[in-house]
Every structure is written in structure tokens, then in C-alpha cells.
């Protein structure tokens, strides 16, 4: 960066916002969220340019960069807040040094071991370990991705997989063909488990399900893997919006109908300050949250970008819960919506029993498994279902 003459720094520092009052927290937060009018924004900027304290407050008031940590806040909250172990600079520096050392060892080991693996790949015992379906989960499904891109996307994964050497024993088989074969088998959940997916817990506590990260159910795992691989593709290739990728995948899965209220709206860049409610759930690379405007949001790239998911015109949402592909969203006026395809299509769920309907705003949704769950309202009502929302009981 260009060096600034020190006289400029000195005169900048000497400048003070003479006579002006500090903007209050309302204006500073609105400035951060870019919800001020142009005139007001200029006034606030004028002040900030001269006031180090207010610049500091604006900096501190910015939402945290790592929204993952916000998501993890729910976990901490369940066991008592603020249980994050502080990481010292020394520890970080050590981590970096040892990490570099470990990387060096891995590189050297690879250089030594790879030729030996090449020899062993011809051995029948190793060939027997080949799992034809193991590559299934490593490849994207979207029909909008060309065969070539699919093959490229699968390549790094294949190199890492233990079956890599076995695959080399089929030299005539080109990568595109591998990808085609793989796609045929993709929906099988057993295949996906082979791709080193962590086993989902049998049953989670209610608190975990609501405000913590939602570990996907095994059946939901294929989608997560697809999304991760597709996102990796996007990083290398042209920056296709994740929303488009998602819609493309839905099409390739044979779901023809478009979302009820049009395509999702992409929010570019990092999670904007105006839409920074805590990340409620994430499954693989997919995360769900409620924006400050009461819209349901989804991120396909671990929280880097967010898109508004249109569910119902004018609905104000307050709670969202994702269990793999099953997504529940509730909000003002007892509105409860459910999607069983990761948010592509939504249906409204009527919560009632013996002619009594749920009243108030839904502020909490908790499901211990795909069928059993509760919704709680701002009017302290709790409704429970044991059949995935078909019938409800008021508690």
C-alpha cells in the first residue's frame, strides 16, 4: 500500500468532529447495516472519519466473520454459555508450525509410498477391496454440470480415497464414464456411508435440535455430499450462483415443478449485517437461518453467501429447523411450513386439534427425529406431533 506522508497522518489525527454529538447506537448499527439514507450515511461517515471512538464501536459492532461460531453458540448455550476455549496466539503459532511440519512429512511420505501403491494395485487382494459404489457420493449429480466438469470434480476425491489405486487398474475407463456410472447409483444411502460420512446420532436432545447444528440423518447425507462437491466445482469454474445449482439439482432429481414463489434470491458476499440471525442449522455445507427481516435463508457454501428462500408471500418467520432434507419453518400468526426436499418445495402445515388452532407466533421448533417434534409459540403454547406433522396435540 502507498506510504502516506506522516504530516497527513498527523493532520488526520488532529482532526476532531468539533461540535458534533456522537451518533447513537441506532445510527451506528443502521450505518453498519446500510439502512440509512444517503444523507444520513454521509453525516455518519463525516463523523466517523474524525472520531476514533465511534470507528472502534462500529468495528466492534460488526457481526462476527465466522458465522459458524454463531451456529456453535447454540451448542454452548445448551451446556451453559461461553464455554468456548480461548485459543492463544502461541497455540495458533504452534499449530501453524506443526501443521507445516506435518504437511512436509505427508509430502515426503507420499513421494515414497505412491510408487509402492502403484505396484500393489495389481494385486488381487487389493482389487477385491474396491467398492464400485464408493465413488458415488464423491461426484456431483446436477445435470447442469458437464460431464467433463463432473469428472474434474471427482478427481481430487478419487485421489484421496483408498480405492484410488484399485481404480487405476481400469486404465481404459475414462473419467466421464466413471462419472456416469456413479450418478446412476447416487441416491443409495448405503453407498454414501462408505464415503467416510460421520455416523449420525440415534437421537438428539431437543435443545440440540433447535439452536445447535443439526447433524444430518443418514438418509439426508447424499444431498450434503452432492452440495459439497458442487460447491467445490463452483470454486474452480465460473461462479454460478449456488441457487441455480440447487435448482438444477432439483430438476435432475426429477422434480419438475418450480418453487411456489419463484427462485431463491441470492445474497452476495458474506452474510450481510442486516441478515445476521444466528445460524440455526447446518447440514454438511447447507445452513439455515432466519434473517432480521423474518425471511428464511439458506447458505450452500458454509455461510459465505446466503440466499433468501421464498416460502410464502408476506410471511414473517422466527424459527427454522433442518434435519437433513426435512426443513421446518415457523413464524408469525402460527404459520408453519415444511419442506421434505431441502427447501425446494414447501407446504403449509395446519396445527390444530379438535377445532382448536395454534395461536401466536411460532418461536421455537424442535424435532428429536423426523417424526416427533414440538413447536412453541410466543403465547407459551406448545404443540407436539409424532407423525411428522400430520396430527398435533396441544400440551
Amino acid at each position, binding site marked *: 500500500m*502507498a506510504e*502516506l*506522508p*506522516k*504530516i*497527513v*497522518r*498527523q*493532520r*488526520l*489525527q488532529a482532526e*476532531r*468532529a*468539533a*461540535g458534533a*454529538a*456522537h451518533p447513537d*447506537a*441506532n*445510527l451506528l*448499527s*443502521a450505518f*453498519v*447495516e*446500510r*439502512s440509512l439514507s444517503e444523507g*444520513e450515511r454521509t453525516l455518519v461517515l*463525516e463523523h*466517523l*472519519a474524525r472520531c*476514533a*471512538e465511534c*470507528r*472502534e464501536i*462500529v*468495528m*466492534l*459492532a460488526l*457481526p*462476527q*466473520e465466522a458465522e459458524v*461460531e*454463531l451456529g456453535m453458540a447454540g451448542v454452548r*448455550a445448551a451446556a451453559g*454459555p*461461553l464455554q468456548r476455549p*480461548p485459543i492463544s496466539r502461541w497455540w*495458533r503459532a504452534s499449530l501453524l508450525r506443526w501443521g507445516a511440519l506435518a504437511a512436509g512429512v505427508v509430502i515426503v511420505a507420499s513421494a515414497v509410498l505412491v510408487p509402492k501403491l502403484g505396484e500393489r494395485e495389481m494385486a488381487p487382494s487389493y482389487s477385491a477391496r474396491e467398492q464400485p459404489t464408493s465413488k458415488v457420493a464423491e461426484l456431483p449429480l446436477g445435470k447442469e454440470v458437464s460431464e467433463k466438469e463432473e469428472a474434474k470434480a471427482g478427481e481430487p476425491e478419487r485421489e484421496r480415497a483408498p480405492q484410488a489405486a484399485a481404480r487405476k487398474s481400469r486404465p481404459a475407463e475414462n473419467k466421464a464414464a466413471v462419472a456416469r456410472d456413479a450418478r446412476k447409483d447416487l441416491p443409495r444411502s448405503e453407498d454414501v456411508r462408505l464415503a467416510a460420512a460421520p455416523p449420525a446420532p440415534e437421537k438428539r436432545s431437543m435443545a440440540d435440535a433447535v439452536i445447535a447444528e443439526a447433524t444430518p440423518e443418514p438418509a439426508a447425507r447424499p444431498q450434503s455430499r452432492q452440495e459439497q462437491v458442487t460447491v467445490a466445482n463452483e470454486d474452480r469454474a465460473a461462479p454460478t450462483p449456488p441457487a441455480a445449482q440447487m435448482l438444477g439439482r432439483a430438476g435432475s432429481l426429477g422434480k419438475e415443478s418450480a418453487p411456489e414463489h419463484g427462485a431463491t434470491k441470492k445474497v452476495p458476499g458474506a452474510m*450481510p*449485517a442486516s441478515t*445476521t*440471525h*444466528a445460524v440455526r442449522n447446518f447440514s454438511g455445507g447447507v445452513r439455515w437461518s432466519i434473517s*432480521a427481516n423474518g425471511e428464511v435463508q439458506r447458505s450452500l457454501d458454509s455461510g459465505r453467501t446466503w440466499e433468501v428462500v421464498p416460502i410464502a408471500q408476506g410471511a*414473517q418467520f*422466527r424459527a427454522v429447523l433442518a434435519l437433513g432434507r426435512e426443513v421446518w419453518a415457523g413464524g408469525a400468526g402460527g404459520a408453519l411450513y415444511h419442506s421434505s426436499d431441502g427447501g425446494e418445495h414447501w407446504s403449509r402445515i395446519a396445527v390444530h386439534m379438535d377445532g382448536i388452532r395454534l395461536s401466536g407466533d411460532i*418461536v*421455537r421448533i424442535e424435532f428429536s427425529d423426523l417424526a416427533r417434534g414440538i413447536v412453541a409459540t*410466543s403465547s*407459551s403454547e406448545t404443540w407436539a406431533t409424532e407423525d411428522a406433522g400430520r396430527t398435533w396435540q396441544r400440551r
Partner: protein
Amino acid sequence: MSGAANPGPQAAATGAEPRLQALAHELYQRSGARELGLPQEQFARLLAEIGTKYLPGESDPARTAEFYRSLRIEELVLAHACAAGSERAWEVFLTRYRVKLYDAAYGMVRDEVRARELADSLYAELYGTETRAGKRTSKLAHYTGRGSLEGWLRAVLAQEHVNSYRRTRREISLEEKTEEGVQFAASDPQPAGCDARLVAATDEALAALSAEERFILAAYYLDGRRLAEIGRMLGVHESTVSRKLERVAGGVRKAIVEGLLRRGMSRAQTEEALETDVRDLDLDIRRQLSQETSSSAFLVKDE
């Protein structure tokens, strides 16, 4: 940034302007204020107060309506219902913001105990510990819905943190400074031992910059902020900040040189003045830095 009463926003409350009255009714319905126990009259009064604060003298009903529609009505109602002591509102508030508030506090101080203390002290203020005329006053009553409630809470928390930091350093808090009227010390007219022409040319060059450009310069060169941080504050990408900074820094230097040339210096003298300044002011800068509170000291960053 407050002003005198204006007829536009007040009309929304009193019903003098039918369109605004209808809007106030619509916003009331949409806000969920009834469920939180906030009467319509109080809601209308609240809108009028906010309008008076931010739209002084505005008489155009369309602009007033647009302003009211831009407010975070639901969060505004929630905050003021909490301030009014609604248990239901507090339940919703705690459900939504408790964890976020602790998390934001931790993000600021990076220490569990201090974060808890900071958040708890804010909670006390949000609940209302001070009593005025026998009534508990909650800080939430100051929220006006211009930005999100979460953003406002973070800003209030940041103010609290800065003040707390100042208190521990035996410095004067921002409020105390404001009350004492000494929050802004007069700027140093001319640093000792510096050519008056250089100071004048520099001030002229800085005065020609836009507010945003001065902000970027100050944030980068005085506060030591990273480009990405400045970008987040301005809502632009760091590459945009980098380009602007490069352009502004180069432009300022050029403008100073031109200013010095206009004031009768030769080109060689201007270069010498800038270079001399670098050497001579070195000590002065150190002195200033040691006196001024380093802004980055408030924030413990992980590096």
C-alpha cells in the same frame, strides 16, 4: 441528529393525515404489538417520536410513509414491549437474543469471564436498573428500529465495552465527556517545528476528500485496520477498499505537492518538506500515539 417537532410524523399518531393514520394502523397489525400487549395509542406515539427525531420538518406524507415502512417494526415493538415490562416480550427477546448477546460480548473481549460480565451489565441496563420518577427505565426504550435490534444490541454492547475499558484505564467515559462538553478537544493548529505551508497544504488536501475517503484513510493509517475490516464496515469488498486507498493516498500526496508549489515552493523543496516532515514528525507521532488511546486496544484480535 434530532430536530424540532414536525407535523408529518405526528400526524401519523394523531390521525390528522388519513394516509399516515392508515399506515400506522397497518404497521400496528403487522408488528404483532397486540400480542405483546402494546396498545395502538402507544404504538402511534412511538412512531411519532421516531418520526420527529429522524424527519425534522418533513411534511411530505409519501416520504414519511416510506420512512416508517423502512423501520424494523416487529423488532421495534418487541424492544418497547420489553421496556414496558411485557413478560411475553421478554420471553421472545431472550429466546432470540440471549445467546447472540453473549456471543457478541465474547467476540469483543475474547475472555469468558469478561464477556459474561459485559453481557450481564448490558442485560441489567436493558431490564432497567435506573429509576426515573419512580419508574424503571430500560435501555431498550431507546431503540428506534432504524437497523436490526441485533445490530443495535451489538452497538450498545460495543459502547459499553469502550466505556468499561476507559473506566478501567481511569479515563473519562464517552457520556461523561459529552456531559462535560469536552468530548472533542480542539485540534492542534500547527505541530511544532513544521512549516506552516506544509500544514496548510495538507489540510487543504484532506478537506478536498470525501467523507468516505477520509474514513478509509483514518481507519487504515491511524487505526491500523485491515482492508477486509474496512470493507466490512463500509459494506464493500476489500479489493474496492484497496483500490480506493491506493488512489486516495496517491492523490493526497500529489495535492500536497501542488499546494506547496502554489505557495511558492520549488519541486525540490516540496519533496524535501515531505521528507523532512517524515523525520521530524517521527517523535511527535510517537508522543501522540502514547497519549491517544490506541483504538485497536479496545479489540483483542486473534492474529
